[in-house]
Each structure stands twice: as C-alpha cells, then as structure tokens.
C-alpha cells in the first residue's frame, strides 16, 4: 500500500522542507514562475504559427522544481520526460534553450533541432536525452543508477514519466531491476489523471500509482504534487534512502495538466470545463505563492517583481531564439556514427 503523506501529521513532525531557507524558497518560486511564463509564451508562438508544436508542463511546475531542489544538479542524474520544463530549468537549462528547440533552431543544445520540442537533453547537466516513445527512459535510468553503484559513485538517478506510461512493459522492467539491485533510483510518476484522453481508471485498476511499487520490493509514496513542500519532503526522504543504500523509491506526484495534452489536442471531448476550473483553483504556483505570502517570505511587491523578471527573461530568450539560425542542411547526415579509431583508416 502506498504511504500517503498527511498534512495533519506532518505539522507535528520536523519536515525536511523546514530546512529550506527563504532564499531557497524564493529561488524555487522564481523557477516555477519562469517555467510558467516560458510555457505560456510557447503556446503563443504556436498559435502565431511560429512554432509547429508545443507540449506543456503547466500545472506540473511545483513538483518538478521541488524534486530538483532535493538533488544535486549536474551530479545526480535526471531522466526527464516531455513535461519537465520546470525540472530542467531548475537543473540549469536556459530558457532560450527551450525556445531554440521549440523553433527548431541550430543552437538547441539538446538536439540541434532534430528532435521535437521539449525533448530535453544535456550531458553537462546530466539530463538524459528525452525520446518520444514513452517509458523507455525507466530501465535506461535503472542502468545508469546501476553503473553508479557498480562504480562506487555517490550518485542518485531520478526518472520521470506520466501515470499512463506506467502501463508500458518498460516501466515494469525498470522498476524490477531497481528493486533487485537496490539501486539509488527514484521514479517520479507525474499523475495528471489523463494520458491524452484516457483517464487513469482505464489505465490501471489500482487506486494509487504508488501501489505499483509493491510488485518490485520498492518503496511507494503518493504525494500531492501541487504542494511543493510536501513534494520536497518525500523527495528528500527518497534521496536520503538512496544515498544510505536502502534502495529505490516510487513517488506518485498527484497533479493535473491545466492545458490540453499538446498544441495538437483539444481536451473538450474528454473532460469537463468544471473539472479543469476546479484544478485551476489548485494551481500549484498559486498555492506556493500563498504559502510564501503567509510565511512572510514573499510580499505582493516582490511577487510582482518576480513575475516581471520572468517575463523579461522570456522576452530576451525569445529575441535570441528568433534571431538564431536554423540548422544548415549540410549537417543532415552528421552524427550518425562517431569517428572511427585509427585502425579503421588503415
């Protein structure tokens, strides 16, 4: 059975998130806001016909930024999925990098415009390359965690996917591997209730995705993914477990996709406007702002300044991205294979 974090209980115990400084919390808020603005701009660019496709992370920002906050960017490994814009920004990806990819521009560090947008990647930041077939990253991430363990390196590997994607065999095999080898491995399932149009009840018969952990001897935790601090708490605990050699954790972060699946989708055929509106009232950035306001870490003025800062960043990024060149067609056949060793020449 999944362990559900309960607000009431938490209040009485010391929480890992209690150790986050005001500066940490403001930083997290800034990244969430930056991601949101960048995401919204991506929709605009799509609607303007400048970007053929956008897939959005709006609604998922809090859990992603909280997860990133609990690891060491560039040292721990992250295998994200296409909704992890905020996650990748928190790890150090630049806003313009996303827009290069969105527009298919050459400087896109992830793929030079070869992949669709939001297929994040950076070796420097230890962000694994996102591909389109869902769930393939799960057993790959298990392999990366295994290598850390075999090499005696103090690294944790985090992998993300949607709840629908847990139906794939890849998920099963990756989690099983992580269980058998007690790997420093954390799988975050971002349960936004739908896989495109298919609701979670048609996807699985369990009440909580976290219940799936029981099949693998892995710890399962379900958490409100729209509560950044709750997410930080379970993530922090999972990271500690991994570092202590106690094995893998499956985290179900319960959230909601506040936009259609992608710019090609129309979500009106499969969910009611009331449902969407209800979740909008639980917008994780609003909730986090509220917490920060209540705690006196943020005031209205700073909040506005942050929003303005985020907009400016996005404006600058857009300008830069618009001016960047497209890939040269002469590069089409580059990077199919690496250079061969000298013997091959001879």
């Amino acid at each position, binding site marked *: 059975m999944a362990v559900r974090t309960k607000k009431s209980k938490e209040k009485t115990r010391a929480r890992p998130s209690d150790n986050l400084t005001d500066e940490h919390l403001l930083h997290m808020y800034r990244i969430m806001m930056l991601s949101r603005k960048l995401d919204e701009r991506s929709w605009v660019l799509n609607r303007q016909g400048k970007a053929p496709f956008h897939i959005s992370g709006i609604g998922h920002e809090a859990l992603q930024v909280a997860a990133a906050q609990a690891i060491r960017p560039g040292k721990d490994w992250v295998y994200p999925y296409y909704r992890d814009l905020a996650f990748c920004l928190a790890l150090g990806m630049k806003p313009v990098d996303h827009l290069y990819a969105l527009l298919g521009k*050459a400087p896109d560090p992830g793929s030079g415009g070869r992949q669709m947008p939001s297929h994040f990647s950076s070796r420097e930041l230890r962000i694994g390359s996102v591909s389109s077939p869902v769930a393939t990253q799960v057993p790959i991430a298990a392999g990366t965690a295994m290598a850390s363990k075999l090499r005696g390196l103090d690294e944790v590997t985090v992998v993300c996917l949607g709840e629908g994607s847990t139906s794939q065999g890849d998920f099963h095999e990756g989690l099983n591997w992580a269980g058998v080898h007690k790997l420093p491995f954390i799988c975050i399932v971002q349960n936004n209730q739908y896989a495109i149009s298919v609701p979670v009840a048609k996807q699985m018969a369990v009440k909580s995705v976290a219940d799936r952990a029981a099949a693998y001897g892995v710890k399962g935790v379900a958490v409100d993914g729209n509560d950044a601090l709750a997410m930080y708490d379970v993530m922090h605990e999972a990271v500690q477990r991994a570092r202590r050699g106690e094995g893998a954790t499956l985290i179900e972060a319960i959230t909601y996709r506040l936009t259609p699946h992608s710019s090609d989708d129309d979500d009106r055929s499969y969910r009611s406007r009331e449902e969407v509106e209800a979740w909008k009232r639980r917008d994780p950035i609003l909730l986090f702002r509220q917490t920060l306001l209540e705690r006196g870490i943020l005031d209205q003025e700073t909040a506005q300044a942050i929003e303005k800062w985020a907009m400016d960043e996005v404006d600058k990024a857009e300008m830069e991205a618009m001016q960047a060149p497209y890939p040269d067609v002469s590069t089409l056949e580059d990077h199919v294979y690496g250079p061969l060793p000298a013997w091959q020449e001879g």
Partner: protein
Amino acid sequence: MAIMSNIEALRETMRQEMRRDERIIITGEDVGPRGGVFRATMGLYEEFGEDRVIDTPLAELSIVATGIGMAMNGLRPIVEIQFADFIFPAFNQILSEAARMRYRTQSDWTVPLVIRAPYGGGISGGLYHSQSVEAFFAHIPGLYVVAPVTPYDIKGLLRAALQVDDPVLFFEHKKTYRLIKGEVPEHDYVVPIGKAAIRRTGRDLSIITYGLAMHDSLKAAEMVAAEGVDAEVIDLRTLKPLDKETILNSVRKTGKALIVHEDNLTGGIGGEIAAIIAQEAFEYLDGPVTRLAPPDVPAMPFSHPLQDAFMLNPHKIAAAMRELAAY
C-alpha cells in the same frame, strides 16, 4: 459516389464494416471519446459503444497481444497504433506470435487481426512521429503489409484486410490523411491484397513506389513529360506480398526502373524490389536499377530545413527520372 479524403474513407469504411459485422471491434489509445488523435475513429464510439470502440492502456505490446487473443476467440479486432513509430514495443508480439500462429499450428489457430498505423513524415513530427517502418514487417512471412494511399484503395484494401484470416499491417501515410481526396464508390468492392496499380502508363521508364512518394512521383512524371520523358508510375499498394508480375511486366516494357520510397535507402523495401528486377528482368534492362530514398540517418529531423532536406519531393524525383532516362 462521394468525394472523400483518405481519413474519411478510412472512417466510413470502418463504420460500414462494423455495421455489417459485429465481430469487428476497435481498440487503441484514445480511439474512444477522443476519436483518435487523427480523428480516424471519430463518432464510432458514439455509434457502437464502449464495448466495440475501446480505449486501451498506453501499452502497444498488449494492444497487439490482446488483439491476437481476441482474434483467437471469435472477434475481428482492428487495433490502432497511434503512430507507426510506437509499434516497436509490440514487435515481438507481431513477429513471434501473430505472424507465426498459423504456421506453427498448421492453421489450427489463426489470427485475423488488422493493425492500423499512421506512418510517414513531412508533418513536423521529428524523429519519432515521422518514420516509415514498413520494411521491418515486409521481411516477416505470415504477415500481409498494405499501404494504400488513395481513398478508393483505403476502402478496398481495408475491406480486403477484414476478409483474410491472417494478420494485416495497414499503414496509412499520415500526411495524406487530409491532403488526398478522391472518389469512393458506395457499393461494396475490394482491392485485392497483392495487386499493384498502374497510375500512369509510360514507355520510357518505370517508377515503382508507394505512399506519399507515389503522389510526388505522379507530379514528377508530369514535370518530365513536358521534356519528352514518358514514365510509368506503379503504386504498389501492397508491400507484402509484392506484385512481382506488375513490376516485372512494366520493367520488361520500359527497360528502366526507378524505385522511390520515403523510408531510408539501406534495407528499405527498394532493395528487395531492385533484387527481383535484377534477377528476373535482367535481359530487359537498358539502365541500372536505380533507387531514390532519403539518406541513411536515424529518422527524420524536426527542424523544417532538415525535414525538407530529408523528404522526397517531385523535384528530386524528376531529377532522378531525367538522369535514368538519359542513361
């Protein structure tokens, strides 16, 4: 007789066949209330209900496997793979199970199953929403592989696919879904599996092609016709088994063969076709059997200049035609 787009022909044929035969059911990701991401099944859930138009878990292996198991228990499933690029998790089930069931049981068990999959590029789909995957399946005995690309053929070949008792891979070039329109007779007819169509007759060279490239080839043929090159254009329609007779008759007549497909060159179906021609029409050849296909890169890039450089188009095809004609 109505004018329909490719996707309309597909949808209306499914509707008609489901009305006629209640063993037919549709399964796949988002095929239900959403009507499919390309809207191929739009309205079918409403008409036939949730027991015949079934949203599945996001898991292609089991979409195909359950299709096999249902086919073995009296149903005639049409399963949709959302994009052909995502058929590979099901590759083992298709190859090891669907394709071998009849052979390994001497027809005691059979798998009457249609697997629909939108394939092909030119729609900003990047590496994983643009692939041509047909060659992998054309190498598997026990499967039929079809790739109709006109509304008429889509109706005729889908009806044929629902009449054979073997698994059929039904590939639909997604860029043609709304681009290509044509007449679709209301009466029942089939386009036999295994029969190519000669779309344009000509004397000087034979173009053997299928998919979107077929439409591009027709345009190219008109371009070079003005220059006095008279090309025959063959639309294979079925990729397994190949219509050797139509291919060989044409090449024996024209003496020159240009094979055109959107899939990568190396290991694509063009190799098989070239081999057949080189072996069986050897004495008639007036020029090298020529293949035109995108370069051997791991699928089509997203960025539009790269995508355009990858894709075929009438100009590239016309250039290859001119060169071969001049040989």
